[in-house]
């Protein structure tokens, strides 16, 4: 009954979305106030209905209602509650429902907080947003209905893929979707602006927080996915250049470009048409990402749905929205007249370089991801493009980006001189060179990656600090604290990038590894640590059986950690997983994996020392945190503007 209710609510939401994409648009074209205003309650109703539908599906999962096909295929009574809930989106149908839920959430948020938007712009933004919604409601209802019943409900379910039964992965999809779908707001604003034929600083100030929020969620989502891969897949890799990872990375790069170019529109009213194009492309890549994941066209571990009908449907959605958006752009972009003028060496110039580097690197990822598909279609060649290609083709752009970033960030608007801008960065430069020399001296004979990664990381962090000090001037701490939040957010995010650089560089270059058959009680040595396998036991988990080892790690005779790497078998899916044991540290992780029992009574054991591993994710968190701090800047707080206007009025009396 509840499932039918959810299905019905979803159908109603589809109907509301159809209304919302047509009526307010006509209202905006004709100038009919009532028709325009009807977009707001419609957006709210759409969110409410989709929310009810999602709640209905969640209830079915939580109560293990196996008469629902989806629940039967993806759940089990013995599964812990948190994974019953995350199981709602741990499958194709449910994850698409989550997608439209978030889409309608963003629409409702724009409706709720959009009271200071011009009414016609608001109506058009909500109209475009609803048209995206309508397309995806249709997709769910016609090709991926989560509410299908089974005629003969089985006694128990088939359980969720054990790899997905993990806290890191439970929250990875919601964050990614918040990011993907958040970019739909930038898209809707771009299309609405093209229809209106008007882009100004106020428009950019509206688009930027949505983009910033989307980018922030994408950052967290990608970091969670990478962290999950690190501890779950059993060899401690953190990035594989897998098509599905790339699918989330391309929108991230473009969102980063977009939120920087939107600053130029906001502050200087230049780069308008480029910003519009980026907004369209960023969401376009979100949809390409959805297409890649959902159609299974490029096979990968992540694609739990491989159904051509679905692929074609999403491709059609992609074609309509990208084709429509770009056509509209071609027709109207000429009307976006730029105002601000600036010299090549200026903040504007630096931000253009930022955009060139980010957009081209996104293009490199794109062509690398699509190349196998392309080669197969064109020449019938089956080939692969993997990590070695991306590492070589992508990394140079990031290196250049990191070199110019602190310099560009400190430049004044309009016109700057290189020498004067470089002056406050002298200390930062000296520090990063010192770091490079230090890293070089302790890692002789190893690759240059460590030196470059650590040096650039130090340059980014010290550069961000130097910029804060520069902006503070001589007035000291009180001024530093009162710097705009946007400045702080910028510094935190940029140093976060630096921390990630250090982590990637040092982990890649300095990781050590040992593979052996370990006998119980016989210690072995790895990078100064003595590791001993002391016991291996069979342990029963809630829905799995585990082979759990006990291992002691010591250094210079002092006990460092007792660790329990595991090998689990989930009987329902008959699937083995490895649960590495990780001793986290600021400067190194100890990473142990237990393998098979050997004929001579020993166990296959893999041990790694992973220096600075956590810096990769700490940096990501800092980047997201920087976004959050920026987002809290007063000029984005809608209420703050109103309050200040009121205060001014009082002062004038």
């Amino acid at each position, binding site marked *: 009954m509840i499932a039918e209710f959810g299905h019905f609510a979803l159908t109603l939401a589809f109907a509301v979305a159809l209304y919302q994409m047509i009526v307010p648009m006509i209202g905006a074209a004709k100038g009919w106030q009532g028709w325009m205003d009807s977009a707001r309650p419609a957006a709210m109703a759409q969110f409410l209905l989709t929310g009810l539908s999602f709640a209905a599906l969640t209830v079915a999962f939580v109560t293990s209602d196996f008469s629902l096909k989806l629940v039967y295929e993806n759940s089990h009574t013995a599964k812990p509650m948190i994974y019953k809930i995350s199981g709602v989106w741990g499958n194709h149908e449910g994850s698409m429902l989550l997608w439209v839920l978030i889409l309608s959430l963003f629409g409702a948020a724009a409706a709720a907080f959009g009271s200071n938007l011009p009414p016609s712009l608001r109506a058009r933004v909500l109209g475009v947003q609803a048209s995206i919604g309508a397309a995806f409601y249709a997709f769910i209802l016609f090709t991926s209905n989560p509410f299908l019943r089974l005629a003969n409900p089985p006694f128990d379910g088939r359980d969720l*893929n054990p790899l997905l039964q993990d806290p890191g992965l439970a929250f990875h999809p919601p964050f990614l979707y918040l990011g993907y779908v958040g970019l739909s707001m930038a898209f809707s604003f771009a299309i609405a602006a093209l229809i209106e034929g008007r882009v*100004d600083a*106020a428009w950019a100030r509206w688009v930027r927080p949505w983009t910033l929020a989307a980018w922030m969620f994408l950052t967290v989502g990608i970091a969670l996915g990478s962290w999950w891969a690190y501890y779950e897949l*059993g060899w401690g890799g953190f990035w*594989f250049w897998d098509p599905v990872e790339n699918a989330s990375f391309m929108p991230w790069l473009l969102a980063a470009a977009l939120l920087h170019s939107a600053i130029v529109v906001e502050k200087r*009213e*230049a780069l308008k048409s480029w910003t519009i194009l980026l907004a369209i492309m960023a969401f376009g890549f979100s949809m390409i990402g959805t297409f890649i994941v959902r159609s299974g066209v490029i*096979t*990968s*571990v992540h694609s739990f749905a*491989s159904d051509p009908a679905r692929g074609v449907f999403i491709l059609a959605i992609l074609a309509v929205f990208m084709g429509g958006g770009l056509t509209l752009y071609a027709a109207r972009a000429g009307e976006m007249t730029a*105002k*601000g*003028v*600036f*010299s*090549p060496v200026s903040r*504007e110039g630096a931000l*253009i*370089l930022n*955009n*060139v*580097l980010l*957009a*081209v*690197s996104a*293009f*490199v990822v794109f*062509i*690398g991801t699509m*190349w196998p598909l392309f*080669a197969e279609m*064109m*020449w019938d*060649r*089956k*080939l*692969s*493009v*993997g*990590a*070695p*290609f991306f590492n*070589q*083709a992508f990394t140079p*752009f990031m290196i250049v980006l990191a070199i110019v970033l602190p310099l560009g960030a400190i430049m004044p608007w*309009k*016109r700057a001189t290189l020498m004067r801008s470089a002056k406050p960065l002298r200390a930062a430069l000296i520090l990063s060179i010192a770091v490079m020399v230090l890293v070089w001296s302790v890692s002789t004979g190893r690759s240059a990656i460590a030196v470059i990664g650590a040096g650039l990381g130090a340059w980014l962090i010290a550069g961000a600090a130097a910029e804060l000090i520069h902006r503070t001037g001589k007035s000291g701490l009180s001024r530093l604290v009162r710097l705009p939040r946007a400045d702080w957010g910028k510094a935190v995010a940029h140093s976060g990038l630096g921390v990630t650089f250090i982590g990637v560089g040092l982990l890649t270059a300095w990781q050590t590894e040992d*593979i*052996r*058959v370990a006998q119980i009680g016989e210690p072995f040595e790895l990078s100064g640590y003595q590791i001993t396998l002391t016991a291996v036991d069979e342990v029963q988990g809630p829905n799995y059986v585990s082979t759990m080892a006990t291992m002691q790690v010591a250094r210079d005779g002092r006990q460092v950690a007792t660790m329990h790497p595991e090998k689990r078998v989930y009987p329902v*899916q*008959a*699937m083995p997983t*490895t649960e590495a044991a990780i001793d986290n540290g600021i400067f190194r992780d100890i990473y142990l994996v237990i*393998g*098979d029992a*050997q004929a001579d009574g020993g166990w*296959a054991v893999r041990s790694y020392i992973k220096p600075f591993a956590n810096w990769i994710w700490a940096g990501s968190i800092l980047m997201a945190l920087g976004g959050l701090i920026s987002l809290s800047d007063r*000029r984005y707080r809608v209420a703050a503007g109103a309050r200040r206007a009121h205060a001014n009025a009082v002062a004038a009396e």
Partner: protein
Amino acid sequence: MILTLLLTLPIAALAVQPDEVLDNPALETRARQLSQKLRCPVCQGENIDESNAAISRDLRLYVRERLVAGDSDDQVIDAVVDRFGEFVLFEPRARGGNLVLWLAGPFMALIALLVAWRFVRARAASTARVEDLSESERTRLQEIMRD
């Protein structure tokens, strides 16, 4: 698909096994580097170094055999590609049609920089002519920002 794959495998055979490791550390390092460039032919996007599939184990052993026999890195790669096709190469060769793939990034960067440079020059040229306009513009901008 991956499920059926895993079902047919012996349970949890972990990537590189202790018995595969070569005694010569230099050769072993080369073997590991090569394994990371070779794709497991039956898995979904894993290299043979990290893959659990039986065929990956065979390939790892084969790579080591050839290295011990004195082959160069390129010879080993060629031998594997001869058997399994270029599908197993994670680093596509930079020749023929694949040149487009390798050159696309640098080429695009060049074009983008050129376009950006022309745009910036045009902006800068107009700076000289409408210097006086920028003042009124600044006030307008401030007005907008005050809203």
